[in-house]
């Protein structure tokens, strides 16, 4: 689904991503892991176009070269994004937040898909409240719900469980699983919490200081690897 | 040939005053061009030096200094607002320059270096009030003005004058508004109420510039026409009218020393020249332009008389110089640096012109110090030697302030 080849990224002078390669196979959940500040979020931003890559290529669905696309066109291709830190629109109501995603839906529907409310009932309950007034976890749910509104083919989740109560985290995991199974969704997940990753991801990739240092089936995520790359 | 005579032109070309002042700059350029075509003065050409003080008062002082100190101009024609004149005054005096000030003003000033070719209050306000009182039979007065020095002073003079004429205090209503005031509903309604007491009422307006359009509009809309309550204005001229739909204003008055509609050959020639110069068929002339016309010609004559552009020589020579004005009469520079002017009252017509309905039988001498203000009624100004005093107190027989400094 997504093929990242040899990308380099800089924040001003500082080289953040180095020759990075990553494969996200279709219909699977790939989990990116790594310590704080190694560049996971930066990588996601590069895919979304929020940061520009200096070199290398990102190919979506075998054919589309993403690096040439504007940000707004990427979501039109069917990429949904749940960024780190929620990034909801604080002064829009919950419902309006969700409605922002309607524009790019293929079916041109003007209604928020039922599934979103089913998944996060609290959003329905609070649909007229301003996004910014929600509690942290509710905001996170809103961010995920909003990404689902566009019915993406590829869903990028940057630490989605952060701040969400345990039973809902589990539920999110289940939803991911269902979506993958039923709708053939592809998921790119950034996650620090091992149990969650182990449970719901099919593949993993570990980043360290801007480089990909390990990759493979989730079963191959050994304690040794963890010790080497995920602890300080 | 000799160096040209440099003429500084100090009028705002941008900012709020550009609306009034930019035409004066063009007038000066036209006059200079004409003079040059006629061979200049004393065989020397004139060279205009134009600067833009941008309606900013300190900038006026700075530009005046620039003209005098840097460009070394021989004379300056400029300023519109009194505050700008006040701002350049110390500079002109310090550097001993010459300034011709072409706009009506509140008086109470006489400088050795400044020639006031616009009207003093006794050349505009008082005759206008006399006309209203005697010819129209006005008994109740609204003195409406923008809240600053010129209207305040003029109204103070008028108030004293009216009371001296036996008008009761309750028959005088005074109203001040901020600059650029645009909402006249309440005030016009008040005027209407004030004017409906059965006595003939008139408004004496010292409303400044941009506030006039909405004022007259409101008058029209509230149905006050000139036959009911005439308004006589001191700062609404042809140029201001060119921005107003004059249809509803017909009959309201203005007091000036010149109108474009005056039937005089000199005037027609001036208008033709102006239209040719601007290239606009609908270009209008107005009172301050005439003042510059007079001032410029006086300067020319004075330089010829003195045979030099030396400031002191010109200053002495110019007193007594008489040149034709545009209304068919003669303007003379008086020892107090003010000139003689006829006073004309005109009624607004639907074509944006004034029709003269009254005029003083002869010209009036500008009075630097008003007789109707307690502080200045004893002062006179005479810049001829040996008196050379701008504020001579006839009671105490002494020359105040400035001369005292000069004497030290």
């Amino acid at each position: 689904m997504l093929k990242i080849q040899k990308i380099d990224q800089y924040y001003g002078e500082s080289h953040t991503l180095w020759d990075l390669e990553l494969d996200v196979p279709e219909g699977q959940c790939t989990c990116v892991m790594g310590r704080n500040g190694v560049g996971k979020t930066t990588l996601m931003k590069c895919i979304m176009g929020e940061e520009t890559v200096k070199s290398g290529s990102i190919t979506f669905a075998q054919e589309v070269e993403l690096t040439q696309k504007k940000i707004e066109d990427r979501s039109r291709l069917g990429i949904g994004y749940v960024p780190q830190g929620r990034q909801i629109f604080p002064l829009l109501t919950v419902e309006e937040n969700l409605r922002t995603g309607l524009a790019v839906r293929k079916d041109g529907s003007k209604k928020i898909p039922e599934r979103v409310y089913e998944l996060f009932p609290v959003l329905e309950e609070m649909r007229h409240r301003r996004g910014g007034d929600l509690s942290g976890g509710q905001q996170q749910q809103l961010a995920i719900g909003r990404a689902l509104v566009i019915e993406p083919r590829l869903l990028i989740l940057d630490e989605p469980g952060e701040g969400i109560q345990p039973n809902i985290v589990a539920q999110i995991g289940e939803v991911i699983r269902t979506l993958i199974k039923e709708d053939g969704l592809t998921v790119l997940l950034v996650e620090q919490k091992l149990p969650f990753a182990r449970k719901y991801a099919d593949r993993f990739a570990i980043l360290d200081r801007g480089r990909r240092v390990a990759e493979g089936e989730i079963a191959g995520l050994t304690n040794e690897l963890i010790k080497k790359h995920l602890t300080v | 040939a000799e160096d040209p005579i440099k003429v500084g032109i100090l009028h705002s070309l941008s900012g709020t005053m550009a609306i009034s002042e930019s035409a004066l700059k063009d007038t000066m350029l036209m006059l200079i061009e004409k003079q040059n075509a006629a061979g200049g003065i004393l065989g020397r050409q004139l060279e205009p030096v134009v600067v833009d003080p941008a309606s900013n008062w300190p900038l006026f002082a700075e530009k005046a200094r620039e003209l005098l100190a840097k460009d070394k101009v021989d004379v300056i024609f400029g300023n519109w607002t009194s505050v700008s004149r006040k701002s350049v005054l110390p500079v002109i005096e310090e550097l001993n320059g010459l300034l011709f000030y072409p706009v009506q003003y509140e008086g109470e000033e006489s400088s050795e270096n400044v020639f006031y070719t616009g009207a003093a209050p006794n050349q505009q306000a008082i005759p206008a009030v006399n006309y209203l009182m005697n010819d129209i039979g006005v008994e109740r007065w609204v003195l409406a003005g923008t809240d600053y020095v010129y209207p305040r002073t003029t109204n103070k003079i008028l108030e004293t004058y009216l009371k001296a004429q036996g008008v009761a205090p309750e028959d005088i209503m005074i109203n001040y508004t901020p600059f650029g005031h645009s909402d006249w509903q309440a005030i016009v309604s008040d005027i209407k109420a004030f004017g409906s007491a059965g006595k003939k009422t008139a408004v004496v307006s010292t409303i400044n510039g941009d506030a006039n359009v909405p004022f007259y509009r409101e008058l029209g809309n509230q149905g006050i026409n000139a036959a009911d309550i005439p308004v006589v204005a001191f700062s609404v001229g042809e140029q201001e009218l060119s921005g107003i739909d004059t249809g509803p204003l017909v009959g309201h008055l203005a007091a000036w020393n010149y109108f474009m509609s005056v039937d005089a050959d000199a005037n027609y020639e001036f208008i033709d020249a102006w239209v040719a110069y601007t290239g606009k068929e609908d270009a209008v002339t107005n009172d301050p332009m005439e003042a510059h016309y007079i001032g410029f010609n006086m300067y020319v004559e004075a330089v010829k008389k003195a045979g030099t552009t030396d400031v002191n020589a010109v200053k002495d020579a110019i007193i007594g110089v008489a040149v034709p004005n545009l209304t068919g009469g003669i303007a003379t520079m008086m020892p107090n640096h003010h000139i003689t002017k006829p006073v004309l009252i005109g009624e607004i017509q639907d074509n944006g012109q004034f029709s003269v309905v009254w005029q003083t039988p002869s010209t009036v001498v500008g009075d630097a110090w008003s007789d109707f203000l307690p502080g200045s009624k004893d002062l006179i100004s005479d810049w001829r030697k040996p008196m050379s005093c701008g504020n001579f107190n006839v009671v105490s027989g002494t020359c105040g302030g400035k001369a005292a400094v000069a004497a030290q």
Partner: protein
Amino acid sequence: MSFLKELANRDKVFNFLIPEVSPVDVRHGPILYLEDVSVSFDGFKAINNLNLTIDDGELRCIIGPNGAGKTTMMDIITGKTRPDTGSVWFGSRHNLLTKSEPEIASLGIGRKFQKPTVFEALTVFENLELAMAADKRVLPTLTAVLNGECRDRIDEVLETIGLRNLRAALAGILSHGQKQWLEIGMLLMQKPRLLLVDEPVAGMTEQEMERTAELLTTLAGKQSVVVVEHDMGFVRSIARKVTVLHQGSVLAEGTMDQVSNHPDVIKVYLGEET
């Protein structure tokens, strides 16, 4: 002037973990005491008759579903939100409801926000410097000098939060997790009597979580700590007493085991399979 300096110097002899002598009076029991606190936003009751007591030196974990009112509770304690009814006491002397945020902060209540907030235009080092316990009135701040001891303290904290290499970097460029750490560092610099920590380990790796847990447990005893967290593993590793909030009031309170077996807690919060 010199008197001020002396005052400022006196506390430098202490290790940074030891709290400053605070004017809090805890002789009569708890350090924090909330009684019958309620607050509603446009009719929505976010906190509903909440009663809570934190003892001096205690480490308390607070859990509860999203929107239960945990953050709002902290807002109330720190003076950000004024409750509609109820009373909040810090020790037995200070009625927090009558105090402004800076007053509350200088009484010795420090807070880490759920969404990390640091001063992005300042460096990591400067962020810590500002947080440092000191006389925070205007003129003393103007004349303050950063002496060696202060520097050492900052370095120490930098070490603890693992941002030594980034000390001169602007806080704005830190990654999410790094900002979390910086905020914890700022909290440490403040040396408060009571620490309110909202979701400290969100976005941290397992091992960092362990370190945080360790840090918080060392603090407890000398300082009182209130932690809000959704990561059960983390809570379990530090928890002595856990309070569960639900819909603005206390649903359950007790040890981790008691709480996690509480049927209501399982229903509204933990889910079946944890």
